[in-house]
């Protein structure tokens, strides 16, 4: 009983007898049948029988006691009013793939099924659009794709079901073997063990540690934003003073913290307030995409993307300089493609210009920006950035990517300080530091000193996979005898570990996180651990340390008490769980003076000469001797830890639209000059680092630069059903001392073909296809500059020539008296971040299909984000360039789902009436009636219909060799993620977006049962709308003149894609307006080619629709 950590459950007594340890009960426990039962043949006395039955009854009755002890406060629906079948929502918070999630989890009968953002959390509440304040129902927090997909990882079929034991030196098994199936003599060496067996091991270990004060014990940990985790790690050092903490961050961003520290703000987190910023300069910082605060930033950014200046609404301006094309780049008003390795030079030039006080009036120049060459071009950009920053002092932000060097980080802080942005648009929030004074070493030091250690605990997910190739972590682990690894999977790291302890998913455990602004946010479990015995980091550490308190909730409460500076009361605790954060907490904003003069540096052990930024000319063109490779975490699988999440694997990466793979992404020019071809392997070399990757060509990528995503190339056996055998492992290329940017790289093309799975035609289109795409995209995604909009607010409608009103062949459905559902997507707000795509997948049970099927073009996403390139066609034709080498290509994105056309082309061709119009104008699918002629798919001009070529919902990986790996039981586990309100489609039927018809129905029912019988604006929100961080998607009733959707559809920017087909779609788009500085306008932006513009044609078609 002393090993309280392991057998803590025993403290829940099963009966009063157990509590009193009566002899009867002891006997009851030790014998299979109670005494009376075995005496049965001799006859049982009535008294004895009653005793035994009473005991059984007590046993049965108190079995559920445990669950009552951990109460989860409900968020919306009171527990006492709980109705079966009605979903409940709970607030929780957790760390997920390098970011903090403030979530609102939808739970059905105790089963979490959807994760969205918590709109009440201070991180989001303060960044609500001002016009949403009057209608609380419209508020939503949004979430990123990782958060949306986190629910699938909970039901991952490959999570290890128990403690996994490997005897050192024995052959690693293909898969773990259940202890009861002993076919192989080696099995007993590699098998699932019970917690009791592991407990004995831990007890023995502890005796050793206590004796040696932890000498020889190392713990690899990941820097965490959870105060409890930090506290527990500090606890380790308190208990075992000689233990060594090893800090390891798979995606290194430590330079930001170091720079803040060096600048004199201590331990603080830097958070931008884009709500206040009128000018945002992003240098290789993917603020709206990969940044850990991306959701927050996207909301703030989108709040000021209205071209109509009124009250709070205005247009901010986003400059983006980057090597790869990022989400931020595609949303930017002005974007420059430049090698990441030149960012230090650029930032130096910007700083020099600011110091010199360069302010240039913003007026149209004689030579348009894109006709400038090299140095002139850079000069103009720097001038524009500097003068915009200087004229918006205190209302501007300059951000650099967290992967850049310390000197660059310091320069950014310095510039922001010079502009007076600190405390206004750039906030430094004090972060509580439970680990202050606790020493730690770096992972490479640990590997070098591996011989000094006898025991190792590994906390971060899969370091053997994520580590750079020159650090031989696997060998180090092998040389240490006792290795305990807390993990979800039997992965590459687990292979070398003696014990692998199952880890909980954040939705299964208690935890806490500190929000970016320091607010303490509690994470509560949504469900008991699905795999019995799994432990969260804090529980695991408590058990390993033999702490008196091993209960997650208690640990988190204790941390909260410490943060609050006194015991947290039951009432405050429950309230905090209810709202998702502890009110009254929050980091202090740094308000002192930063040490930015360049002379003194304080803070810890940093001693560098940070202001020596390189000077020189910025080379925008291709230079074969100066190639670089930039390694970035994947937008889909992060560092690989989300690799087994099918939704994310199949999520088209925002710009490349690549799924199930990583690739060396480069520009067209670079590919041509290096003779690289799309879909062929390229060998990248730098010294003894080398790796072979498929080439992916995209216009607008910086010349001479390759971007490669981390997290791919898991081994087939270890990667799990989903992650195995896709992509390329970069370990052989990565070097410990280089975080992200590798210069002086050699790239040699091979002609080895490689099949890439993209959901959109990759760039290897033929010339004709490219030129047609370039011709069509300005009509599909209508775009103009702010100047143009101000001159002619209705230019959007004149982008397409319309000659006369078309008549319908068929009678159109009458919808006058009903609801008239519609949707508007504001392209000016949409960043193309993919959150809506995963949200739709989670809400509507959209299956994944696997890499082979994506190559076949059979992906099932109901909502996709189309990406087009736009280029200056006039300039290109003047330069006699073909569309294979577009210049100044801009990427524009457009979410595309079923537009619910009023005269739907799909409906009239269906021979069995399986797709029909509802009275409310929703183009509905009757799955049961569908026989799969696929005619509707052909006739849909948007190609948003999806066909189940196979039974994708039960099997996937067709023709890929691993479709059989899914066991029956695993399928059942995975199917827990399904939304019971949406039909699971079988093979042979069509499916598509339904405007979340289940939500529409629920909203109508709610309005009848709870409301006044009317559906109000905001009562019904589609899944994509709810997930959208930037409020770009609005859904509602078009018959309600006050609804936001009605108003937005009557905006002068509203247009229908392919309106000339007379299909009358219910989903309209608002055109994109870019706030381009006049001096940086390209020729096409200054004189856009629009039908009805300037020439005689305007008299005929300018007033379209009113004459015929």
């Amino acid at each position: 009983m002393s090993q309280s950590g392991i057998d803590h459950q025993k403290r829940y007594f099963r009966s009063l007898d157990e509590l009193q340890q009566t002899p009867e009960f002891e006997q009851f426990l030790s014998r299979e049948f109670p005494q009376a039962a075995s005496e049965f043949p001799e006859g049982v006395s009535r008294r004895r029988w009653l005793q035994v039955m009473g005991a059984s009854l007590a046993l049965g009755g108190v079995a559920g006691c445990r669950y009552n002890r951990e109460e989860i406060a409900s968020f919306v629906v009171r527990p006492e009013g709980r109705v079966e079948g009605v979903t409940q929502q709970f607030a929780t918070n957790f760390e997920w793939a390098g970011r903090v999630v403030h979530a609102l989890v939808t739970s059905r009968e105790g089963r979490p099924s959807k994760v969205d953002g918590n709109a009440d959390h201070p991180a989001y509440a303060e960044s609500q659009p001002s016009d949403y304040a009057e209608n609380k129902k419209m508020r939503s927090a949004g979430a990123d794709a990782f958060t949306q997909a986190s629910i699938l990882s909970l039901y991952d079929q490959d999570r290890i079901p128990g403690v996994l034991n490997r005897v050192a030196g024995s052959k690693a098994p293909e898969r773990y073997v259940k202890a009861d199936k002993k076919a192989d003599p080696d099995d007993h060496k590699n098998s699932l063990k019970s917690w009791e067996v592991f407990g004995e091991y831990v007890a023995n270990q502890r005796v050793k540690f206590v004796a040696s004060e932890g000498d020889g014990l190392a713990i690899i940990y990941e820097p965490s934003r959870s105060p409890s985790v930090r506290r527990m790690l500090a606890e380790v050092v308190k208990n075992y003073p000689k233990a060594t903490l090893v800090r390891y961050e798979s995606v290194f961003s430590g330079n930001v913290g170091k720079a803040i520290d060096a600048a004199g703000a201590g331990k603080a987190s830097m958070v931008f307030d884009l709500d206040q910023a009128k000018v945002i300069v992003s240098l290789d910082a993917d603020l709206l995409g990969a940044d850990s605060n991306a959701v927050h930033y996207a909301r703030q950014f989108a709040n000021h993307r209205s071209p109509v200046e009124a009250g709070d609404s205005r247009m901010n301006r986003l400059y983006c300089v980057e090597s790869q094309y990022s989400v931020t780049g595609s949303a930017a008003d002005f974007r420059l493609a430049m090698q990441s390795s030149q960012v230090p030079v650029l930032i130096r030039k910007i700083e020099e210009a600011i110091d010199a006080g360069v302010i240039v009036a913003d007026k149209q120049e004689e030579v348009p920006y894109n006709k400038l060459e090299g140095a002139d071009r850079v000069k103009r950009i720097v001038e524009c950035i500097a003068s915009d920053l200087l004229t918006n002092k205190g209302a501007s932000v300059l951000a650099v990517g967290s992967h850049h060097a310390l000197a660059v980080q310091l320069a950014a802080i310095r510039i922001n300080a010079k502009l007076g942005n600190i405390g206004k648009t750039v906030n430094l929030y004090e972060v509580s530091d439970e680990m202050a004074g606790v020493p730690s070493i770096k992972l490479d030091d640990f590997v070098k000193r591996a011989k000094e250690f006898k025991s190792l605990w590994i906390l971060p997910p899969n370091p053997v996979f994520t580590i750079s190739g020159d650090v031989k972590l696997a060998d180090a682990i092998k040389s240490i005898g006792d290795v305990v690894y807390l993990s979800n999977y039997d992965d590459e790291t687990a292979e070398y570990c003696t014990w692998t302890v199952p880890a909980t998913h954040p939705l299964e455990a208690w935890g806490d996180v500190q929000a970016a602004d320091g607010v303490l946010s509690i994470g509560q479990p949504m469900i008991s651990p699905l795999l019995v015995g799994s432990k969260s980091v804090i529980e695991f550490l408590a058990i390993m340390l033999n702490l008196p308190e091993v209960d997650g909730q208690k640990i988190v409460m204790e941390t909260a008490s410490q943060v609050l500076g006194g015991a947290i009361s039951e009432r405050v605790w429950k309230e905090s769980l209810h709202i998702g954060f502890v009110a009254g907490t929050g980091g202090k904003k740094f308000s002192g003076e930063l040490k930015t003069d360049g002379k003194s540096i304080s803070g810890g052990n940093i001693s560098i000469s940070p202001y020596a930024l390189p000077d020189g000319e910025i080379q925008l063109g291709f230079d074969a001797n100066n190639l670089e490779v930039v390694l970035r975490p994947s937008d889909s699988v992060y560092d690989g830890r989300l690799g087994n999440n099918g939704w994310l694997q199949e999520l088209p990466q925002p710009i490349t639209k690549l799924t199930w793979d990583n690739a060396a992404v480069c520009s067209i020019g670079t590919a041509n000059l290096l003779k690289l071809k799309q879909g062929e392997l390229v060998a990248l070399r730098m010294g003894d680092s080398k790796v072979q990757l498929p080439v992916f060509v995209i216009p607008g990528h910086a010349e001479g630069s390759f971007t490669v995503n981390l997290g791919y190339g898991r081994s087939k056996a270890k990667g799990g059903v989903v992650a195995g055998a896709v992509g390329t492992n970069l370990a052989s290329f990565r070097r410990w001392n280089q975080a992200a940017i590798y210069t002086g790289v050699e790239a040699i093309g091979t002609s080895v073909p490689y099949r890439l799975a993209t959901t959109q035609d990759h760039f290897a289109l033929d010339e004709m296809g490219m030129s047609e795409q370039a011709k069509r995209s300005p009509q599909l995604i209508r775009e103009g500059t702010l100047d143009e909009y101000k001159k002619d607010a209705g230019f959007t409608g004149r982008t397409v020539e319309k000659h006369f009103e078309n008549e319908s062949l068929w009678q159109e459905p009458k919808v006058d008296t009903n609801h008239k559902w519609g949707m508007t997507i504001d392209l000016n707000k949409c960043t193309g971040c993919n959150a809506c795509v995963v949200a739709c997948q989670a809400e509507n049970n959209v299956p994944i299909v696997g890499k082979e099927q994506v190559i076949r073009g059979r992906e099932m996403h109901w909502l996709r984000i189309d990406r087009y390139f736009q280029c200056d066609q006039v300039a290109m034709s003047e330069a006699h360039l073909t569309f294979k080498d577009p210049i100044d290509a801009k990427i524009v994105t457009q979410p595309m789902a079923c537009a619910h056309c009023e005269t739907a082309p799909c409906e009239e061709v269906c021979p069995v009436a399986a797709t029909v119009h509802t009275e409310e104008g929703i183009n509905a699918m009757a799955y049961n009636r569908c026989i799969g002629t696929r005619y509707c798919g052909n006739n849909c001009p948007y190609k948003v219909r999806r066909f189940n070529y196979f039974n994708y919902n039960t099997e996937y990986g067709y023709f890929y060799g691993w479709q059989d790996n899914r066991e029956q039981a695993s399928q059942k586990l995975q199917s827990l993620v399904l939304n019971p309100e949406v039909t699971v489609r079988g093979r042979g039927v069509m499916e598509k977006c339904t405007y979340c018809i289940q939500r529409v129905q629920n909203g109508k029912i709610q309005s009848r049962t709870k409301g006044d019988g009317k559906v109000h604006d905001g009562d019904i929100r589609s899944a994509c709308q709810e997930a959208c961080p930037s409020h770009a998607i609005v859904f509602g009733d078009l018959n309600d003149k006050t609804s936001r959707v009605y108003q937005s559809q009557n905006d002068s920017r509203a247009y229908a894609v392919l309106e000339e087909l007379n299909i009358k779609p219910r989903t309209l788009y608002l055109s994109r307006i870019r706030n381009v500085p006049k001096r940086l306008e390209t020729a096409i932006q200054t004189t856009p080619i629009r039908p009805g513009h300037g020439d005689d044609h305007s008299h005929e078609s300018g007033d379209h629709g009113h004459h015929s």
Partner: protein
Amino acid sequence: MATIASNFNPREIDNTDDIPGRRAPLITGDQSYNSITEMVCRVAENPQPMVWYIAFGFSSLTAVMFLSLIGFLILKGVGIWGNMNPVFWAWPIVNFVFWVGIAHAGTLISAILFLFRQNWRTSINRASEAMTIFAVVCAGIYPGIHVGRAWLAFWLLPYPSLNLWMWPQFRSPLLWDVFAVGTYASVSLVFWYMGMIPDLATYRDRSKSPLRRMIYGILCLGWTGSSRHWMRYEKAYTLLAAFAAPLVLSVHTVVSFDFAVSQVAGWHTTIFPPYFVAGAIFSGFAMVVTLLVPFRTLYKLENLITLRHLDNMNKIILATGSLVGLAYATEFFMAWYSQNPYEYFTFFNRAFGPYWWAYWTMVTCNVISPQLFWFRKLRTSPYAMFVISIFVNIGMWFERFVITITSLSRDFLPSSWGYFRPTMFDGLMFFGSFGIFISLFLLFCRFLPTIAMSEVKGILSITNHAAHGHDGAHGNEH
């Protein structure tokens, strides 16, 4: 007996000359009622040549493979084909239209040429009609197995169901297709069968085995050859011909609606109905030539299916091939003239986009190769016409491929463009349909009257009259 008609080399007689004032003989040799009966009946009565057994063995195996693949398809799902988003319709539909097109020649020859009193049809109409039926069989298989849930394909029929009181959706061209192809198949079958009745009676009368006699006896519905029978037969035949004639035009018109009524650029054109019908006749005649050239040699029927028959068919191939070529040109003109950017791009893309190879294969085979028939020498050479007719078949398959797949692969939104790649199953199942077709045709040769004896005999007097009336011209024959 059987030597009467084949004791001369038919190649020496050229009945393809049209000498003014003289009527060229439709059948050659000094034919009598008896010799015709002998020639036709021995096809079924004599033991089949070795070639038949080899061909049938091969084709029936292929047919069995096809049927097994259908089973596999229903088991696994239509995903085994290469169909994708956006090319939701691919090879199965291409094959369907291909076979339906081929099915045109038979009824055209029997019905329309009959109504126009084209006597040369008599030697070839039976085999062409049979070919029609078998092509419809092949065509009919595809739409049924093409749907995602083949076991529910019967929902396309307007049948009264007890649990779901609803009709199919009548605005859908696919439904029109069901009716059009269904009507065409049933009328063609009746027409074919009715025309065979007198000949079946001949087979019955000549049968030596009682079983054969019984079966043919049942099939010929008690035909005695009485003048009353003949009178009713002729009336019914004319009526059916009149009924079938518009179907020749309607069926492929309706098939073309599958495309023309949709709004996919490249499909949505008004030229499709005539263009499809011309193409169908073109491909149908080509298939008839492909079949009859080896058929007449194998069964030594050169005197009945003479070079003049083949020459006539080749002229029709030349005419329809040129029509098809004109249609291609018109489509291009309209794509440019209409100034519809989507349509313009679709056609431009067909010819010069990623599917250029399919387009130019189509043009070469369909437009250029039949032009060789301007040369009389090629028109009357069985070898040349066999090769050209196969080219036309290939070209017409590619025409459907080009229409169906290139239009779908690049439609309105460039984000959804795709490139279709067939799978092994696409290929095997197209190949397999030929197994069904050839097997059925071989069985037809084996068991049914392949040439309409009674009708050929009907033109015998004309031929003989023509031959005898101009002794001088053909004196050396006697």
